[in-house]
């Protein structure tokens, strides 16, 4: 039960050095998929098809989100040659939340924090070797009383 919160105490904070941004870096964002207002549309736009469920995609997300404004998500897979990992929140106004492009040196394990407007199915879609795999979970977003 007890977790030693001293772990967090006086952690070294910033380690970064500021840089200028080379604009040329950014590749093509799938804007159309991000604009889609329904999950199937978003996936059709991203992949041209609907992915099949696979137990090789591991979607870690709370069953009951403490706060819809900040829902931690981690997606991992043991599939080889992963090209991309995407997160779709079916009931969000624009369901595609994030899409991560991985490369040959990537480890297929990505975490991000997302917003959920209401309780919804959440899908994680992995594209590996040109094929699509997905996992999904139903996440309840609760209404807090006071919070604290």
């Amino acid at each position: 039960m007890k977790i030693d919160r001293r772990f967090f105490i006086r952690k070294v904070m910033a380690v970064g050095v500021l840089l200028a941004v080379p604009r040329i870096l950014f590749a093509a964002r799938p804007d159309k998929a991000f604009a889609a207002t329904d999950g199937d549309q978003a996936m059709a736009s991203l992949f041209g098809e609907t992915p099949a469920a696979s137990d090789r995609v591991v979607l870690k997300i709370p069953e009951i989100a403490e706060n819809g404004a900040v829902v931690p998500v981690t997606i991992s897979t043991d599939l080889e040659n992963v090209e991309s990992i995407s997160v779709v929140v079916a009931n969000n106004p624009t369901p595609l939340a994030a899409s991560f492009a991985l490369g040959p040196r990537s480890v297929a394990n990505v975490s991000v924090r997302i917003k959920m407007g209401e309780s919804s199915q959440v899908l994680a879609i992995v594209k590996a070797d040109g094929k699509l795999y997905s996992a999904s979970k139903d996440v309840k977003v609760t209404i807090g009383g006071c919070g604290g």
Partner: protein
Amino acid sequence: MIRVFVIILMATGLLATQPASAGPEKDLQAMQDFYQKRFPNVAPEEFANGLYAFDEGARAQWLELEDFPPYEIAVEEGEAYFNTPFANGNSYADCFENNGLSIKQNYPYFDNDTSKVVTLELAINQCREENGEQPLPYLRGELTAISAYMAYTSRGNTINVQVPNDNPKALAAYDAGKQFYYSRRGQLNFSCSSCHVQVVGLSLRADPISTTVGQVTHFPAYRTVWGEIVTLHRRFVECNSQVRARPFESQSDEYRNLEYFLTYMSNGFELNGPSSRR
């Protein structure tokens, strides 16, 4: 008639919930004993983690946030503000013991000169005014960030608020804060203790209720509902608003006294602020 009814409700509420005034030390002991009996399976130091002491699912999400918490942004901004000298060349470090670092455990304290409770946020603004600077707004922004940084440098220190038994004015301020905690107010007619003492262990909608002991250790707190770091007094404002009472001003005598009582109820706990809360 209605008025009489309300007074009777208040009176019965007080009788039912408020322990007999027996001095701060005995109050603290009674409060600690109460929660220990109420939650025999919760390690006492866990009460510093609010609802995360009780709710495993929420706790897991909280720990993920704490892995790289959004309040680090405010702490870093606060450090920069703290180290920026005033126009007269002095800085915050000149106003405080130990250059302002690692001192939050001593706040709030009772100031005999003004006969009032001094909170850390108030002391920050006093420091500014003594150095010819405008005071900062209390509810958000720069002052909260400075307070967050000072809290961060004090992490792990044990809260040690003094209410001297031989100082009647300090005792009166403590008693006023205690009175506030147990007084019903607002259209919902709730006192702080209605939730945090009487029905602790239940939930307000989806939120388990935090305990009085350990309640203030993590302030200023990053509330994900607000998406920013907030002071204890802003939380008081919210609590009072939620029971549909008219809130008091930040750093009003009422909230300063309440902070004095409530922080005394966390004596012996380690400071763990800033922390994130939903």
